[in-house]
């Protein structure tokens, strides 16, 4: 193992984009500490592992956890995709992708299929991920019980005892009051039959994609200083009742651009007289579909 300083110098020459920082911004000791936390997290699926989260040059709550996880696992041969709200071109996704291009000089891509690492905020790509890919989630609040029990010491105890009746009661009360479970995003899941986990604020629509996903799923919460993971092919169940099963919901419409009736849609307000339309939230999925439709049309002509 090289001393961190030596590592720093050897990289400086290779990476021209910014000087004075180690490959991936974090020093090698920090990356090793984070990788240890990740290994522990993978070994105990859904369990939140505290880690010595660093003060990053981006604000807390803006993806510092996801960035630290990505920085710890990324290598020069990786291809990184960064999405926010499903899109590659939202400002925060652009900002994070630029950060890695500057501090790691890695190749970036907007195509889900070409990426080795996908860092995301609030969505899981529509294109199914495959073995060998890693999905890194930015997590604002890792504790699924925090609205029901704000004391961290107490929630740790409840996890240790696998006592999740608070959450079940909340879902029961939702149905008693409204006829439906009222949670639409950050919908709690049970991982490997043991730990209750926050899937991060993805829409409940995306929850089923987590179940037995072929890719490794890593979750980083920088401000709360916790890491957790779901290894490939792990059982991830959305909490529900036998007679009120979990139903992923999306707008009942087709994408205006690619016509998809399966993808998650953004609602776009087109005027101030009630006009709206729906487009895919996953920009890569939508663009790819438009491309194949275009070439199919050309072939037909």
């Amino acid at each position, binding site marked *: 193992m090289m001393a961190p300083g030596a590592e720093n110098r050897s990289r400086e020459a290779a990476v021209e984009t910014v000087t004075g920082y180690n490959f991936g911004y974090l020093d090698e000791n920090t990356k090793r500490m984070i990788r240890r936390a990740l290994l522990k997290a993978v070994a105990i699926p859904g369990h939140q592992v505290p880690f010595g989260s660093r003060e990053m040059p981006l604000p807390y709550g803006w993806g510092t956890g996801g960035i630290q996880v990505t920085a710890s696992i990324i290598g020069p041969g990786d291809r990184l995709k960064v999405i926010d709200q499903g899109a590659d071109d939202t400002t925060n996704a652009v900002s994070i992708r630029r950060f890695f291009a500057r501090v790691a000089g890695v190749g970036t891509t907007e195509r889900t299929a070409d990426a080795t690492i996908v860092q995301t905020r609030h969505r899981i790509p529509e294109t199914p991920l495959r073995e060998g890919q890693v999905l890194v989630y930015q997590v*604002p609040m890792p504790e699924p019980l925090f609205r029901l029990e704000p004391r961290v010491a107490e929630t740790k105890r409840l996890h240790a005892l696998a006592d999740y009746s608070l959450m079940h009661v909340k879902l029961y009360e939702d149905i008693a009051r409204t006829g439906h479970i009222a949670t639409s995003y950050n919908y709690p899941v049970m991982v490997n039959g043991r730990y209750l986990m926050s899937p991060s604020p993805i829409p409940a629509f995306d929850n089923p994609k987590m179940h037995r996903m072929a890719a490794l799923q890593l979750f980083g919460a920088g401000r709360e200083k916790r890491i957790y993971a779901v290894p490939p092919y792990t059982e991830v169940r959305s909490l529900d009742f036998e007679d009120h099963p979990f139903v992923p919901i999306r707008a009942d419409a087709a994408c205006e651009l690619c016509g998809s009736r399966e993808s998650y849609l953004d609602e776009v307000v087109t005027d101030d007289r009630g006009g709206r339309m729906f487009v895919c939230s996953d920009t890569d999925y939508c663009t790819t579909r438009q491309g194949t439709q275009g070439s199919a049309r050309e072939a037909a002509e």
Partner: protein
Amino acid sequence: MYVAVKGGERAIEAAHAWLAEARRGDPALPELSVAQVEEQLGLAVDRVMAEGACHDRGLAALAIKQARGDLIEAAFLLRAYRTTLPRFGASLPLETGAMRIRRRISATYKDLPGGQVLGPTFDYTHRLLDFALAAEGEAPAPAPEAPAEAATMPRVTGILAQEGLMQPEPPGDAEPPDLTRQPLSFPADRPLRLQALARGDEGFLLALGYSTQRGYGNAHPFVGEIRMGEVAVEIVPPELGFPIAIGEITVTECQMVNQFAGSKTEPAQFTRGYGLVFGHGERKAMAMALVDRSLRARELGEEAEAPAQSEEFVLYHCDNVEATGFVEHLKLPHYVDFQSELEKIRQLRATALREAAE
């Protein structure tokens, strides 16, 4: 045909350019130098060093200039720089008893060895805007000087301790925890709590300290002593094995003296609330001392119901860089979550309306 909004990258670049222009202000006016900030906005520099947890006046002044005077943003810049620095180890505890005093006051004794030293304080200024400062004036006449006190000034809490009236702090040789390396865990011991408070937001600690005085928590504080001045920082390099001084820094220390009724095992005595900050930060040091004492409620067997007495509440919320990030992240796009909420609300309303119709 609808075209999705693109150009995030160009928008960011344009925003940064505009920010740089706004930072400079009217180019007809001379540019503010970092040295001017350091010399003439010294208390802002001190605050940024304290909350940025990095003692470097020049960098703090640069951060203030870069942040356009936004002190939390400046503390953030300093922290993000600090985190990239190698960690050499911990210094020896500062010997504040040997401080070269610029200011020292006690509210508990009228006079005491070394006397009361007001120093450069706002305390007895009348808060009248001084319009003379608006005009570019000459440097003020030098302040009168007294001959330096030869003897060091004993600390008030030491005087109380001689009589056995002040609860002693347990000595510790252990290297203090570093919460920039290890996440907070609870119950947090006092060194960890003090470390979090020393980096904590002045406004938050001020409000919490104030709340203990208004009955939210059981505080009976006296300012035993506030002292501000220069102290030497010493480290023990492993290859030498003895302490060497690596420099001198300015700090403000506040020791609050609080009554403690005693318990079955301990007679009644005074207990300490402690505050220490970089630079001249008297308000912060005092608030910190109040909050430190209130966080000791549980270990002293007192009721612990008030916010200022809850370790989790105080320590998880006192960091203004964390708080700013999380509050401000709400302005990031949340289209996806909001869309799911829209669909859910429509579903719930449809169910309710259908039931009402039946």
